[in-house]
């Protein structure tokens, strides 16, 4: 903190000062240089995600505490070292799996798929990932620094999440600025809340690596590696999901799992 930052002789109600528009919503950022926010050492953000909108994975340089002000949806986090405990091999309806079988009809792809199967039992799952939770209005969500997080609105009204970013928190090892790191998507407007930086579009973290290095690290081809850089993509960081969002999710509170109902007969 700079000296006298809390010498406030007047407070006022403040509105967001920056709005980042995206394909399926917007991110509204309060100016963290405003005297009262600077004194408290925090930044404040509001995420508005339209129905079927996916806020792409990102992580921050500090701890974040969020509150679901409106709507409902899904929230996923990737915590370093945690296992993919959500596993399922029947997430999609038979029609989708038929699609896979169609793939098998094309000899080369089929072989590849079988080869993948050959890479160990683990790959016979349809998918497995870290925990996904239902969120609803009133939920309060704690996100440690460096933990990637994504949201998806599976309701009919906008999902509104407000977050305080504790810039003075000891988990922030950088300066007193909110610095989101995007793992996917990009921010064509740039980090407009940062002073002194020539505003350039903000890209995702893959964008900074040569595609060849990404290809080697992920053992994929260079074309797919270039795709991960989202360079031809101007959707922003909240994108629409086309079709079904088949993420493995637990039953909603109060909803009995199907198997139990079957037993009930």
């Amino acid at each position, binding site marked *: 903190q700079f000296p006298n930052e809390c010498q406030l002789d007047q407070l006022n109600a403040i509105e967001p000062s920056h709005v980042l528009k995206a394909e399926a919503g917007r991110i509204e950022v309060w100016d963290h240089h405003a005297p009262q926010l600077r004194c408290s050492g925090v930044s404040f953000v509001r995420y508005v995600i339209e129905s079927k909108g996916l806020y792409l994975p990102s992580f921050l340089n500090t701890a974040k505490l969020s509150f679901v002000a409106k709507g409902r949806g899904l929230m996923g986090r990737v915590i370093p070292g945690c296992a993919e405990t959500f596993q399922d091999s029947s997430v999609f309806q038979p029609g989708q799996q038929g699609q896979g079988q169609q793939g098998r009809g094309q000899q080369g792809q089929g072989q590849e798929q079988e080869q993948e199967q050959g890479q160990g039992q683990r*790959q016979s799952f349809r998918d497995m*990932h870290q925990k996904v939770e239902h969120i609803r209005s009133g939920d309060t969500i704690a996100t440690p*620094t460096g933990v990637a997080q994504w949201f998806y609105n599976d309701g009919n009204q906008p999902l509104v999440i407000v977050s305080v970013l504790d810039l003075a928190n000891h988990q922030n090892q950088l300066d007193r600025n909110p610095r989101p790191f995007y793992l996917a998507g990009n921010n064509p407007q*740039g980090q407009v809340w940062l002073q002194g930086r020539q505003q350039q579009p903000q890209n995702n973290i893959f964008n*900074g690596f040569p595609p060849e290095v990404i290809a080697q690290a992920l*053992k994929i081809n260079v074309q*797919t590696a270039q795709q991960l850089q989202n*360079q031809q993509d101007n959707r922003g960081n909240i994108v629409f999901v*086309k079709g079904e969002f088949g993420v493995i999710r637990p039953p909603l509170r109060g909803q009995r799992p199907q198997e139990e109902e079957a037993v009930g007969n």
Partner: protein
Amino acid sequence: GLEETICSARSTDNLDDPSNADVYKPQLGYISTLNSYDLPILRFLRLSALRGSIRQNAMVLPQWNANANAILYVTDGEAQVQVVNDNGERVFDGQVSQGQLLAIPQGFAVVKRATSDQFRWVEFKTNANAQINTLAGRTSIMAGLPLEVISNGYQISPQEARKVKFNTLETTLTHASGPASYGRPR
């Protein structure tokens, strides 16, 4: 009471002993970490350390320090290192060699690839329990994300998303081939 606590506390530990490696691949090398679980006094300092020793063409998979800055010092050999900042810009792309220092701030992604027979370095981290997250590998961010998020986020097919997620089975070290430097970003 000080005799039993502070005065008798252990304050040294050796990181050059491969038998204590936390990550080990016979063909590629090893990495050892020293945090407050290994050396409790580090809890007071809020610092930790890492020692790496890898062979030529071994790559430390792209990763970021989730809760610490890292100060990398090269003790032997050379490596090609790339670092990417929060704006997705490559802020370092070059060779580091013996005696050189490189600071890698929290959240900045880094990839290292040994270009000499042996590349050995020590990293000092500004957190007693420094955590990394990797961009590739069996315990990476990609492995933790649902296929839906990957295919929608990057606009790639479910099959491609599957490859991105599952192809790399290593967790930290892998073997890289081809040229080590790729010129400046587009």
